[in-house]
Structures are given as structure tokens and as C-alpha cells.
């Protein structure tokens, strides 16, 4: 920046030379505020979504930049919610990006005092083994089922997920499959 420009950008000079003599308005504007814009403007994409909390089913728009969620907002197109969100819906960005989230598998061995690390593949394999063994040990032939394996949850999940769950459990003969509709 040339010296002249530097001086011209000094708000006092702007004050003395412009209409804003008292320095309350544009002469006091800073670099930051002059170049400000909504961060949603620079999002790489906007993805249609639905609020994950309650059954009102408010529509959301997810703003993504550099493969990160940078903002979650109501979708004004929704005939249900018209763009509005309650405090929970408004906290969705924190829900999906916040520090509370867990990113690693944790394993607690029987009687163990604390969590241990476990690779996801290994965990899946171990769980499959447990299912097979428990099912075999508790098989009730006449009723084509096992009462040894139960499942809880589903109301926070997608229809497709509930469908696969029910399909797999039923094929395995696990019938104690329940969710929040019961409580």
C-alpha cells in the first residue's frame, strides 16, 4: 500500500474528507467489515436434509465447505416448517460437528476396568461371532427363534435402517426387537 493510500485509509482522514464528520458511519468501517459476507455464500454445496430430533420433521439445508458442515439452517421451502427451527433443530450443527461426538470404537472386556481400543473390522467380526454363538446356544427350534438376543432403538434411525434391522433380526430369529414407540 502506498503511503498516500495508507493515509487516505486512515479513518480520521476519511472523517475530515468525507460526509461522515463524526466518525460514526462509513469513515470508521474496517477492512473486515467491508469485505464481510455470509459464510453460506461460499459453501461448496447445499444439501437438503431433515431435522434429526423430533417428529415434526422440519426441513433443513446443510451447507458444506471443504467437506465440513459449516451451517445448518431451516429450509423455507418446507410446507411443514417454512424455514423455521426450534432450539434443538437450531443446534444441529453442534450436534453433528461438536466435540462431544465419538469417532472411535471402544471396547470393554468382561470385568474390564476401562475402555480399550478396537479396530472397527475386528469389532464387527467379534460381534458377528457373538451373534452366531448366542443364537446357537439359545435356539428355540419349535418357535424358530432365539430369546437370547434383543435389540432396542429405531426411532432416531432411517426407515431403510429399521427395515434392514427388522429383516436381519427376523431372519436370525431374534424377536425381542423394540424401539421408543414402546415407551
Amino acid at each position: 500500500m502506498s503511503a498516500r493510500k495508507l493515509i487516505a485509509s486512515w479513518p480520521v482522514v476519511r472523517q475530515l474528507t468525507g460526509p461522515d464528520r463524526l466518525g460514526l458511519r462509513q469513515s470508521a468501517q474496517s477492512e473486515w467489515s467491508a469485505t464481510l459476507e455470509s459464510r453460506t455464500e461460499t459453501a461448496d454445496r447445499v444439501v437438503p436434509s431433515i431435522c434429526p430430533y423430533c417428529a415434526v420433521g422440519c426441513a433443513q439445508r446443510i451447507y458444506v465447505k471443504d467437506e465440513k458442515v459449516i451451517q445448518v439452517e431451516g429450509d423455507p421451502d418446507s410446507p411443514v416448517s417454512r424455514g423455521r427451527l426450534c432450539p434443538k433443530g437450531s443446534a444441529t450443527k453442534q450436534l453433528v460437528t461438536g466435540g462431544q461426538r465419538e469417532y472411535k470404537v471402544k471396547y470393554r472386556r468382561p470385568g474390564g476396568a476401562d475402555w480399550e481400543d478396537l479396530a472397527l473390522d475386528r469389532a464387527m467380526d467379534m460381534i458377528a461371532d457373538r451373534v452366531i454363538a448366542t443364537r446357537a446356544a439359545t435356539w428355540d427350534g419349535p418357535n424358530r427363534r432365539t430369546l437370547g438376543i434383543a435389540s432396542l432403538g429405531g426411532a432416531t434411525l432411517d426407515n431403510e435402517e429399521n427395515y434392514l434391522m427388522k429383516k436381519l433380526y427376523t431372519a436370525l430369529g431374534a424377536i425381542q426387537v423394540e424401539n421408543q414407540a414402546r415407551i
Partner: protein
Amino acid sequence: MRPTKVTGYYGRPVLKAPVWKSAIPLYFFTGGVAGASSTLAFAAGLRGNRRLARSAMLASVAGVAASGPLLVIDLGKPSRFLNMLRVAKPTSPMSVGSWVLTAFAPASMAAAASDVTGRLPRLGRVAAGAGAVLGPVVATYTAVLVANTAIPAWHDAHRELPFLFVGSAAASAAGIAMIATPVADAGPARRLAMMGAALELGAFRAMESRLDEAVAGPYMHGRAGRLAKAAEACSATGAVLAVTAGRRRRRAAVTAGALLCAGSLLTRFSVFRAGIESAADPAATIDPQRRRVDGRGTVGA
């Protein structure tokens, strides 16, 4: 137990208390010393009282030198002071003060430097003159600064606060001069001490009696009130001592000077503290305003 009448919204303050820490009332004091001292120095110099002029000049420099760090402590980093010179806002006493201080500090230092070293005497005199003119502004603008807030105990005292601050500044400048100057040369300082203390005490009394009762409280009771009482005692004793034993004995003069400084300092802290208490008291904000609205008789707010 006292019956509690909850005012406003669960008794919560309407206003935010100033976030300033003790650096600020300290600065009011050092700024006051600097400002009043440079005026005193100039006047003493004109009258040829070199001893008095020299000590007042040094007091002024000391005041300036202490003020800088105090302001920086408040802002956090030195560079933050630079932003003060970004704009010049007549609506902001702090802005006005910053510009004045920016002119005053070098003037006061230059004057002292010239005086001590004996070099560039012409420039020294101009600087001393500038310091003398700006000094009263430095000593008073802080009163406007606090008055120009929403805090009832400050805002509503805007008529008296400048006199209180000036009196306080004069008394403290005089006190320091008395400490730093032989008794023989300190006559003007003693007289200034008397006048300063009188102004300080008088302005305080005037303020107390004029303020709305919902507003004046902090000046009379509680911590700020206690500080005010102590300030009054110190200043009054200091002033009396100054013009009695202080005329003769150096030790008495030093004690008087110290008392005057203490009084001035306590006054600043008392006012500061009163502001914080006032901000915390919803009634101080709401009651006078409610009376105003009801007085107007409109549905209004």
C-alpha cells in the same frame, strides 16, 4: 432479615457494570496529578518559583509515565492504544482524552526534559505552556468520561463530577508538590491544596444532595460510601494540616501531602466503586425513569 422487594426482572441489573479494573481509577488519579501538576508548574515557573515548578513538572511527568502502563494494563496490549487514534470523535470523551493525552504527554515530558537538562529552553517553554493549557483538560476529561455513561451514579452527577475531579486533581498535585518541595517554596502548593480539597469536598456534598435518592445511595452507604468517607477525612485533614503545621515543618507538610494524595485516590476509587454498585442496582436505573414516564403521563413505554 431485610424485606426484599424485587425490582424489575428478578432484581437483575438493567445495566452492565463497567469492566474496568482498578487501573482505571488509578489512572484517574495519575492523570489528575499529571494535569494539575503541569498547570501548577507553568504558573510557578511564570512566578519564578523554580523549585516548585521543577517538582510539579516532575510530578507531571511521573503522572504521565504511570498513566501509560495503567492504560495498557486496562487494554491488555500496548498496540491496542494505537486504535485510539484511528478516529477522532467529539462524542467520545475517551477519544478526546486520547488525542489530548497524545499531545499532552510529549509536551509534559519535553518541558521537564528541557528544564532538567537546560537544553532547548525555548522549546521547553512552549511545551510547558502547552502542558499548562492541556493539563486542566487531562484533569477533567475523565470526569466527563465516566459521566458520559448510562450509569446513574455517574451520569446523573455530570454537573458535579468535573469539579470533584478537578478538586481532587488539584489537591493531589498540590500534595505531591508539598512533599517534593521545601516548605519555604511550597506556599502556592499549600494554598492550592486548600482550594482543591475544598472543591473536592464541596462538589461531593453538592452531588450527594442533588442526586435522586435511588441514585445517590452508593455514595453514602456500602463500600463506595465508606471510601468516600475516608476520602473526605483524608482530604480535610490533609488540607488543614497543610495550611497549619505544614507551613512550618517539613514532616507535617509531607504528611499533609500524603493525606491529600490518599484523599484524592480514595475519591477516585469511591466514585469508581459507586458506579459499579449503581450499575448493579436495578432500582437506580428504573425508579427515576419510571417517575419520569409517569410524570409525562403518557401511556408510552
